[in-house]
Structure formats: C-alpha cells, structure tokens
C-alpha cells in the first residue's frame, strides 16, 4: 500500500516534470504577494487626477479649495497636477498651503480672522491626516465646514509592485546570464567553479582598460565597447585554457576550474592592486542601469535575448544536441561521431565568456570594477542551474529551466528582504530551498527508493 502511494506520488511529480519549477515559482510569487499585501498610495499624478474627479463631481466651480502639501518634490508634483486638473474644469479659487502643520494652523487662523470660508481641503495621505484638520468645526468655526479630500488608497502586495519586479529581474540578470554558460557546462557533464572570479577579473580588466587606455572619464562609447569586448575575449581565452586542460589532458573539471577560480581572483587583485577602479565615464552605466526600450532595463533585455538564443541553440542546433549526448554518455556519443573534445571545449569557452560579460554588467551597475565582485556567485549560479532541473550528472536539463531557477532564487531573496528577514536566516532558508529542489528532482527521476 505504502509503496503504491509513494509510486503514485513520484508519478505525479514526474508528470509535473518540466512545469514543476514554474509551478514552484508561481507558488512562491503567490506566497510573497499574500504576505506583503499592504495599503498602497497612488503616485502623486494618479492620486491628484482621481481626487480632482471627485471634487468636480461633488462641488461647484466657485468652491474654495485648499491644497495642503509639504515642501517635498512629490508633494509639489501632486499639488501641480491637482491645480492643473481643477483649473481646467473651471475652478479658480485655489490656494496652495505649503509647509508644516504649524504653517497650516497660522493660515487657518488668518482666514478665520478675515472671515473667509473654505469648502474643500485636499491633501495627500500625510497632509490630509494632520491633526490640525481633525476637528475644524470646533477649532475654527469661522471658516465654515470644509470637506477633507485625500487620494483613495488601495491594497496591493509590495512584492508585485512594478518597481520591485523590475528590481528582481535587474538583480538576477548577471547570475542568469552566467547560468546559461553553467547550464551548458553541466549538461555536457562538467562543472565550472571559476565564473565568480571571472566576474571580478573581467570587471577589473574592463575598468582598467577604460581608465588607462581609453581616456578615463573622457572615454568614448566605441572605446568602452572595445574595452568590454577585449575583457570578454580574454575571459573566453581563459575558458579555452580551462576546457583544454579538461578535454585534452583529461583532468577533472572540478579541480581545473577550482584552480582557475583562484588564479582569476588573484589576477583581479593583482591587476587592480586590491583597489576598486572607478575612474570611468558616466556613460558606462548604460548597460547596467539604463533602460532604453519600454522601460525594460538594458541588462534584462540582454538577458532575455541571450536566453532566446541559448534556448534555440540547445534545442535546434547540432551543437546543442552534441552537448546533451556528450553529457549523457560520452563514449556512446563518440562512437556516434560526436566530436566530444570540441564540444566540451566550447562549453567552457562559452561559460567563461558569459562570466566575462556578467562582470562587465556588474561593473556597469556599480560604475566601478573591484576584485571583490562576484564572490560566491559560482555557487548561486550552480544553485540556479540545479534548481532549474538540470542534472549534475550531465545529459539532462533545460536552458529555460535555469532561467526559472534563477528567478526562484531571486524571488526568495527578494521576498525575504520585503519581509525583513535577517540576512543570516535568509542564507539558511536559501540553502534549504536548494536542497529541497534537488531532492524533489531526485525523487522525480528515481522514485522514493534509496537504491
């Protein structure tokens, strides 16, 4: 009985198969949405427009309107929009009261002495709630009985706010891009521990080239692009050495890439003298902080394009098929005519080149290059790949699974930040999630039996 129900459960997991991780991501999203559900204020413009609509509907154009704001840019934007909306609909008696509650009180006293009346007091969620306005009919009987207006708030999860979602994708871009290369390497039956250090190496190299060769703060766009390309090529060459040692000398990938990891990290410190390099032009941040298309950050766009290409390459090219074959059974692949040496070599070159690109994006995000970048990133990248359903024993896995895996990790981190969970606890939970993902994968593949 127990056996069959276990078997049924593992069948279910198997049926979930490719979609299991998507389901997990959605469930995580749902969870964090529920726990971060909070009262949200509209943006100043949107709030002002909605408020103006209500005033127009309930009052004549000759009513006296106070707009109460603090001396803040967002408050001023609110007041401007509101005034403009009301002016357009014919309201003319509009007074902007700016400052602190004390200023509002003085103004009220002045109006009472003059015997003027007020019909409407409009403020944002802060000013409209000032104590001064709480009992006007008793404290200032001379100004009439003004109605208080404030923008309508709504409930919406902090997690699902557009800023937050863009933030997640932007933060995951570097890891996700590098994870493409890692997926390729792992599917081919290897592992690459050097990517984290290559981030630092490439970031430092790019920034040094820009500072010392391309004209520092005056560097032009084409010079910066050239510097970045050189860094990527150097990283790829390092990947070529790694792959060569693994393929042609049959050294274990773990050891070779461990060595490379130390060398690249040390190299980054040597190149930069242990300092961060920040003498680079503002234009350099275009890649990491800019957003040129529909508000989508450039790094995210680049990530999306790379994933599209990688997906196509893995599914629809000979190279992709060969990677799976080499990782699945390299002897059978060789006897089927697969050039296993070249295929494995290419995986390490790609992984290193993408790590180089990741370093440049990170340098661009932080507008500097430092040898401390990318520490532990190799582990996050491997975690993303494994959580995404790629088998560490090679031959199986999906590029898009890795993207999901990267998002799962980012969403968990982000969600825990929103919930104000301590960073130490976050580490523990992240570790647990990774173990759980691998365990589920194992059960999916082999059922519940130990052997």
């Amino acid at each position, binding site marked *: 009985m127990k056996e069959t129900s276990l078997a049924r459960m593992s069948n279910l997991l198997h049926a979930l198969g490719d979609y299991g991780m998507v389901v997990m991501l959605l469930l995580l999203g749902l969870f964090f949405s529920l726990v971060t559900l909070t009262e949200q204020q509209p943006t100043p413009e949107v709030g002002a427009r909605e408020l103006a609509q209500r005033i127009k509907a309930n009052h004549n154009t000759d009513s006296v309107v106070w707009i109460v704001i603090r001396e803040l840019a967002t408050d001023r934007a609110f007041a401007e929009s509101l005034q403009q909306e009301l002016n357009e609909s014919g309201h003319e008696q509009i007074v902007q009261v700016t400052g602190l509650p004390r200023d509002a009180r003085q103004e009220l006293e002045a109006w009472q002495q003059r015997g003027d009346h007020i019909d409407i007091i409009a403020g944002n969620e802060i000013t409209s709630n000032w104590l001064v306005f709480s009992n006007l009919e008793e404290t200032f009987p001379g100004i009439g009985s003004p109605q208080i207006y404030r923008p309508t708030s709504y409930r919406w999860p902090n997690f699902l706010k557009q800023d937050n979602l863009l933030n997640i994708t932007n933060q995951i871009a570097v890891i996700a891009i590098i994870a493409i290369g890692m997926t390729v390497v792992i599917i081919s039956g290897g592992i690459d521990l050097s990517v984290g250090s290559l981030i630092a190496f490439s970031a430092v190299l790019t920034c040094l080239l820009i500072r010392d060769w391309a004209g520092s703060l005056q560097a032009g766009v084409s010079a910066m692009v050239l510097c970045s390309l050189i860094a990527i090529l150097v990283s790829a060459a390092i990947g070529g050495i790694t792959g060569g040692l693994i393929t042609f000398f049959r050294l274990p990938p773990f050891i070779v890439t461990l060595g490379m990891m130390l060398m690249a990290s040390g190299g980054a410190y040597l190149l930069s003298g242990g300092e961060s390099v920040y003498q680079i032009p503002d234009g350099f941040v275009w890649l990491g902080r800019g957003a040129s298309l529909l508000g989508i950050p450039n790094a995210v766009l680049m990530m999306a394009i790379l994933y599209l290409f990688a997906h*196509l390459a893995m*599914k629809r090219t000979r190279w992709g098929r060969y990677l799976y074959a080499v990782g699945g*059974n390299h002897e*059978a692949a060789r*006897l089927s*005519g697969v050039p296993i040496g070249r295929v494995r070599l290419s995986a390490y070159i790609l992984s290193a080149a993408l790590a180089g690109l990741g370093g440049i994006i990170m340098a661009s995000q932080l507008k500097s290059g430092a040898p401390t970048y990318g520490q532990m990133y190799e582990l996050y990248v491997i975690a993303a790949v494994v959580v995404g359903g790629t088998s560490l024993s090679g031959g199986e896995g999906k590029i898009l699974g890795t993207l999901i895996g990267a998002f799962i990790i980012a969403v968990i981190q982000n969600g825990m930040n929103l919930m104000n969970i301590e960073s130490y606890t976050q580490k523990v939970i992240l570790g647990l999630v990774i173990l759980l993902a691998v365990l589920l994968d194992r059960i999916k593949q082999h059922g519940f039996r130990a052997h």
Partner: protein
Amino acid sequence: MPASQRPKGCDLSEMISPLLEMRGIGKSFAGIQALKGVDLVLQEGEVLALMGENGAGKSTLMKILGGAHLPDEGELKLRGNRILVDSPQKARSLGIAMIYQEFNLIPALSAAENVFLGQEIVQHGLIQHEAQESRTADLLKELGMPFDPSTPCQRLSIAQQQSVEIARALSQEAQILVMDEPSAVLTPPEVKRLFAIIDQCRKRGLGLIYIGHRLDEIFEIADRVMVLRDGQPAGSFPIDQCKRHELIHCMVGRPMDQEYPKRKGHPGPVRLKVSELRRGKAVQGVCFEARGGEILGLAGLVGAGRTELARLIFGADRSEAGTIQLDGRTLSLRSPAEAIAAGIGFLSEDRKLQGLITQHSICSNFGLPNLDQFTRAGLLNLGQEEASFNQYAETMQLKRHGPKQRASHLSGGNQQKLVIAKWLARRCEVLIFDEPTRGIDVGAKYEIYQLMHALADEGKVILMISSELPEMLGMADRILVMHQGRLTGEITHPASSNQQAIMEMAVA
C-alpha cells in the same frame, strides 16, 4: 584430509560429503534462462576446470556461488550443510573466495594492507602493521612469491597482484577458491608460477574452481573438467579420461538447430582492405580484405582482439601502424567521426554503455549520427528528424510507444534495432556488427539476420563479430579466426565447416 584433523562426533554422512555441492541450480534474467538444472560438485584438494562457450553460464554460476546472485531454484551445500549465500560478505564468511580478472585491490595500499583489508590486526585501536606484514610475508613465501609486503599494490606486477589476492583468500581461511581466467593476464613464466601456487592451495586442501579457455592449461592443472553449454551441464569428466577433441565437441556440440535466412546475393569486388594493423598486444599486425556484399565473420575467444580490431577500423582507438583502405582510398582515421564520414558504422557489443544514450529519447538517439541530414542553415528541422525516425523505425519494425520514449525502456532486441536504424539512416558502406544478437530473443535474432543479408545484398561490407559459433557458421560467407591479436586461420566455406574447426584455431 587426514582423519585426525576431523572434528570429533561427525557422523558418517558428513565425513563423506564433498566440500561443495550445487544441486539443480536454475536462474533466469528478465525471462531469459541463464542456468537450468546445473549440478556442481567440488572435493577438497581438487581443481575443477569450468569450461564452456562465452555466455554458457559460467560466470552466472560463479556469481551465485559468490553471493552476487541468488538462484531461482536449487540448493548449495558446504560439507553437507545447506547454506544460503545471499551476499558477497556471506560468501566470504563461509570461506568462498573469488578472484576475478579485474583484481579487487586498492592500488595505493600496500600488499599487506590489502591482504588484511576489512580484517585488520588491531591492538588498542591501532593497526599492527608489522604483524600484518610478517603474516603476509609468510603467506607469500608459502605461495612461492616472496616480495616485500609493504609495497603499494600499484607498483606490483600483475602476477604479484594476483598472489596478493590469493594470499588474502588464504588469510581469510578460504575453503573454496574461484579463479576467473587467471592466466589470461599473465606471461608464460608467470602462468607456470601461478600453477605452482594453485598446486600449493590444492595441497592445503582447498577446493579450486578454475575458469579457463586454454585447453593446454586445463590439461596441465585440472583434476576434473565440467562443461556448461547454454546454461546446462554438458558433461563432467576426470581429466585423464578426457581427450582434447572430445572436450571441444562437448563445449560447442549443440546441433545446428537454429534457422538462418537463406542468402541470395554473392560477394562482389574487394572494397575494404586492412593491412598490418597494430595496437599494443590486442592487435598485432592484422591483414585482411573484405568484399562488397560479403558477410565476413571474425571469430575467436573473448580477449582475442576482435573488438579491438573493429575499434581500430572504426577510428575509436588509434592504430599504431597499418593502413585501412576503402574502395581504393586510404583512410587515416583519428576519430569515429572521421570513420563515419568515410562511411563506416559500428554496432558495439555493449549497447547500453556504448551504443545508446539510454536516458535520451529513441528519436534523438536515432538522430545523433545523422544530424547533418536534418540541418538547414544551422538549424535542426525536428519534424524532418522525426519523420525520418518513423520511417526507419517502421522498416525495422521497432516496437515503440513514440519517438519521445526513453531508449532505456526498449527491450534488448529493440535497442539493437534502434542502433541498426541509426546506422541505416547514415547509409554506411561498411558496417561492423559486434555481437549483434547478444541478449536478443530468437525471433528478433532472425529479423536482424535478415537485415544483415539485405545490407550485404546492397553491396555493403559487413563485418560480424560473434562468439556464438553456430551463428558464425550460419551467417558468415567467410570466417577469419583470431587468437591473441593475430589472425590464426580462415574458413572460406563456413557451410561445409564446423564449430570444431573454428575452436581448434581459436585456442591455437
């Protein structure tokens, strides 16, 4: 055994019961009967040679004795007492020691540490290296192989490693010692010394089971011979009442009851020319020619170098010398990819490890060597691949659920058909079949034979390696026999030849 050594109070039946009795042993794997009604009796101080063709069931029988498999039927008795050997540990504790061709030694540990592995001499929690080493030295001296027992095993010669294995068995007070082709890895002088060791063991009262193919050696060392054929006992004789040709006849003496399809076509001109091909000891200067439309058989015992030769022709291993010509063009093959490009296909004997990527789908296994045919502008046309797969799967009558089915879920026969299908789509001119029907049921065998005929009739060159002699005689147009890396004979008219003739050349 002298009577004085026997424990007191034994009854008579125990006193006369043999060291080991295996009675009515039967075992089947996935519906294939590997052993049926096998009886084996081993006396103290006896060397029993266990012989038979490859696949006759010798290793299965020994695995049952060694606790690696449980028999489906039958019983084991040790000195008349029923025993249940359900694990290798149990076998060892009962005094049954196995020495395989691949030694079970830990290379970095010394000879003494290996001998006492798992049963270390320990005092106050510390291993007593000196005691272990002196004890090992005694054992080795007894075996006539004195060398320093503190030497790491990786620095020992093969013969020395073998003696470490034997010393381990003796130190564990083994009563039964099973040796699987122990002489295969030794030089002639080393074999002499091994026989001296075996003699020592015999004198100590051990029962030895010696699996071997070399008739000369069997006649030299064994007291009795037992022959298995198709998983059943084919005879058991004392060595002095046994003649060489009788033994061979007994091993292969199955009547030619299997059906082979009738061959229509005839061999054409020479297409494949192999000359002076060499690689290490496995292939030592092999020359032959094969004609288009010819099924050329490569016969020989396991380890004769047949597969190694095939791998050289396929570029899977690099040859040290020699040339391969196909249709007058000399090929220099550095990888299987180049051999495939030249039109050579290879169906390896181990489908699971070398022929297929078993966790991948049958369609992608089919496609792997053929992807260039489905590629347009760098992109694969998956629909075309699947269409081609379906077409060939239909021709091969591959039983399948769909193209996405995992290759591991196919039966052995269907896996073989899948491998053939992928090479058919490649349109190879030379196809090497290494044990094409191993582990395949009779029905599927016939289909594969028909396919081989059809391919030959198209004018292709078919090289067939098979350890099943009837298959060899029934299928091949010509047979080359290999022994120890060399061609030792040729049978030009298999139809009028017999298995005995092949066997004579194969044991040379």
